[in-house]
């Protein structure tokens, strides 16, 4: 008993030991800036309209069917508010409120339509949730400028470790899911994707070479599975970070993943020492603030003060609550990616347990889904033109993902029942190609999808 409790005590001491706040400041700035930029970009490209307003049908996340798009004005308001709150996070202005808003609004927009699911978005959602519970605004922020007494030099170590842990989980899983026959032995899908990018400047010709896909497959797997370790170790950190830059620059060039290479390059900075972070913040402070007309009196406020952890920080209740929440969060993060083991069949084919598991850019998959709606009374069957209801992106994603196919089938049932088709029978002929193999039927095209209750039933004989 005593042995265990000393262990726990020792662990708790480590976990709450003081650490410099500078890495948190960097994270706050990186995530706030990236979300602000990506939200502005999203609006500028007209994607609010394309993604959320124009489509007549939206695919829901299981359990979040109640999250529906607001009317157009509401959606724009959400995006503008999101932009503002991420700017507030960046500047550390009314930070907790801003962080809560940033998390809720961003997650709301993500939950609107399953079509646009990306692991990167999921990561941003998690990172902004974690930002809520850490005091990232207690240095170098507008909040400290308003309330100098809030300034902190040190924070409990866990506030930084949770981000390292989260990133470690993301990379590690991204790495181990690459350990499969297609990826390592066949170099698929990279054998499809790399030569398709042979027009890229500088690296293009290299991508078109015969053995490059194998190099990239193995290097990608090793990189993802081990990078967190190299980043943790001070001796290898600089080189490891160089590979972070290289890796994400290449994936950014190859795939249409928007600002996320930058997000990862920024977020992995959290592995750097507090000194490193303090250095660039000091540099920035000197460059920007000592030159302002207000003079150094104001700029002093941004400087760190030697203070101990305030007594009120970590009131028992809050501390307990946060600790328990984090425990559940990380247990979930570690266990949930394995749920695919509970489903029959190949996870690449059925995609049951595929999402929320950090399976990133793992396969080249595409399908053609043709839906047939039969009038249960007259027996007359018609072929649905998907594009009448879905945009190109929705159709493309739906056509290979069984749960989305079922959702669309249920939508068609309702839609055509309203159009006067009696007791509609909906079936779908779905041909899917995976990693350049000839396309084949995803499930029995004779199944009446209105009678299928779960994705699992599609694959049971």
């Amino acid at each position: 008993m005593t042995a265990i409790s000393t262990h726990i005590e020792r662990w708790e001491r480590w976990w709450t030991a003081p650490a410099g706040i500078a890495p948190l400041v960097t994270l706050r700035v990186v995530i706030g800036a990236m979300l602000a930029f990506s939200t502005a970009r999203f609006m500028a490209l007209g994607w609010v309209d394309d993604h959320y307003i124009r489509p007549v049908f939206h695919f829901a996340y299981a359990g979040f069917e109640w999250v529906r798009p607001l009317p157009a004005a509401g959606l724009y308001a959400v995006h503008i508010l999101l932009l503002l709150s991420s700017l507030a996070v960046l500047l550390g202005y009314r930070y907790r409120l801003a962080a809560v808003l940033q998390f809720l609004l961003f997650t709301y927009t993500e939950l609107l339509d399953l079509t646009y699911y990306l692991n990167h978005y999921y990561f941003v959602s998690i990172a902004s949730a974690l930002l809520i519970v850490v005091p990232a605004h207690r240095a170098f922020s507008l909040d400290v400028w308003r309330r100098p007494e809030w300034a902190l030099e040190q924070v409990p170590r866990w506030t930084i470790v949770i981000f390292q842990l989260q990133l470690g989980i993301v990379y590690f899983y991204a790495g181990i899911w690459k350990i499969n026959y297609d990826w390592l032995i066949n170099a698929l899908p990279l054998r499809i994707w790399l030569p398709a990018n042979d027009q890229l400047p500088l690296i293009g010709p290299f991508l078109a070479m015969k053995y490059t896909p194998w190099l990239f497959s193995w290097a990608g797997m090793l990189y993802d599975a081990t990078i967190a370790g190299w980043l943790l170790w001070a001796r290898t950190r600089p080189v490891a970070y160089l590979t972070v830059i290289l890796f994400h620059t290449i994936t950014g060039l190859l795939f249409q993943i928007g600002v996320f290479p930058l997000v990862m390059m920024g977020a992995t900075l959290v592995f750097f020492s507090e000194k490193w972070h303090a250095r660039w913040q000091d540099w920035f402070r000197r460059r920007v603030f000592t030159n302002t007309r207000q003079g150094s009196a104001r700029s002093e406020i941004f400087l760190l003060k030697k203070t101990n952890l305030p007594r009120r920080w970590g009131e028992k209740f809050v501390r307990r609550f946060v600790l328990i929440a984090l425990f559940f969060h990380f247990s979930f993060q570690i266990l949930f990616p394995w749920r695919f083991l509970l489903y029959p069949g190949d996870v690449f084919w059925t995609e049951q347990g595929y999402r929320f598991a950090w399976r990133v850019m793992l396969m080249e998959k595409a399908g053609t889904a043709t839906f047939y709606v039969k009038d249960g009374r007259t027996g007359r069957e018609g072929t649905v033109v998907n594009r009448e209801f879905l945009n190109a992106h929705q159709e493309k994603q739906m056509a290979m993902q069984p749960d989305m196919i079922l959702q669309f089938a249920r939508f068609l049932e309702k839609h055509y029942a309203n159009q006067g088709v009696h007791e509609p029978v909906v079936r779908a002929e779905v041909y899917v190609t995976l990693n350049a193999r000839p396309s084949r039927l995803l499930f029995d095209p004779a199944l009446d999808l209105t009678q299928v209750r779960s994705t699992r039933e599609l694959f049971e004989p």
Partner: protein
Amino acid sequence: MIKSIFRTAPLLAALLLLFNACDPAGGTDTPNFDRKAMLQDYATNLIRPAYGDLRAKAEALHEAAQTFQSAPSLSALQALQNAWQTTAIVWQYANAYNFGPAGEEGLRKSLAEEIGTFPASSAKIDAAIAAGAWNLNDFNRDARGLPAIEYLIFPAAADDAAILAAFGTTPARGQYLTALTQDLRARAAAVHDAWLGNYAANFVENAGTDAGSSTSQLYNEFVRSFEALKNFKLGLPMGKRPGQTMPAPQLAEAPYSSASLLLLRNHYDAIEGIWRGKNAAGAEGLGFRAYLEKVEGGSALIQSTEAQMAAVRAAFTAVPDSPALSEQITQSPAALDTLYTELQKLTRYLKSDLSSLLGIAITYSSGDGD
């Protein structure tokens, strides 16, 4: 250990480069397809001639319309009708390239929508003639282009003499007709000029596979054209849409001229031509098919696609040239049913297998499952 990794890494990289460099270029999965050469062939061998033909025939159509308007006669009407049919046929070879100069821009929709929206709205056309006023740049795309011209010169229930009489009694009819042919000619000429000018070079230079690349745009419009053939030129008039309780032959393309089947066959020929890189005159160049030969899984896809294309051809052969499509739909739809089914079976090869194997991004945002 870490040191040894650093020490060996350059060596490994050098070895890899050596492997790559020494490997002879042959081999089925050596991806060394020249996409620029393919785009060049599409531009010079298919697209430019297709728009050139369209422009020339539209020119002739406009002249025939002017001749008919200034001196209406049965023979002038028949010459006009022939000119229309020739234009409608060459249009089938040009209707799949709705990007760049033929794409949407501001209020202008794609060329296919501006000159090819069917069925024509007889109500709108009659109203415009009655009012003696029309605007050929508004949203009423079903009151201009080839289908509207067809409606004017081949009204279904009337014979040629009645049409002649209608033009005789209402001068606005002739004016509307020439305004339409003039508009058609101008639109075709504008797109052709762009392809004669700088656009072709831009098209060839934009040789990536990302969304917005020439390959992606060409591919997307190719699939869209194929699906339009299946869904709107055949499926809809046959009553194949859910909720349709009977065939709707009046929704076919070219219902007045009885040219629906002829146009359908030519449209399909054009689709196969794009697949092979073969133009209307039969000259071959590099196309999607040649590209597939160079990628993983490509030969298997070529085989299954062409087997299915053969089935579609057989189904086309089984459909007689007469009676007209509308009549076959209502009286003897069996052969058409088979054709529709075979076209449906071809869809997946073109719509998802092809883009997946070639790694073409068909939309701007990327999914993890890509």
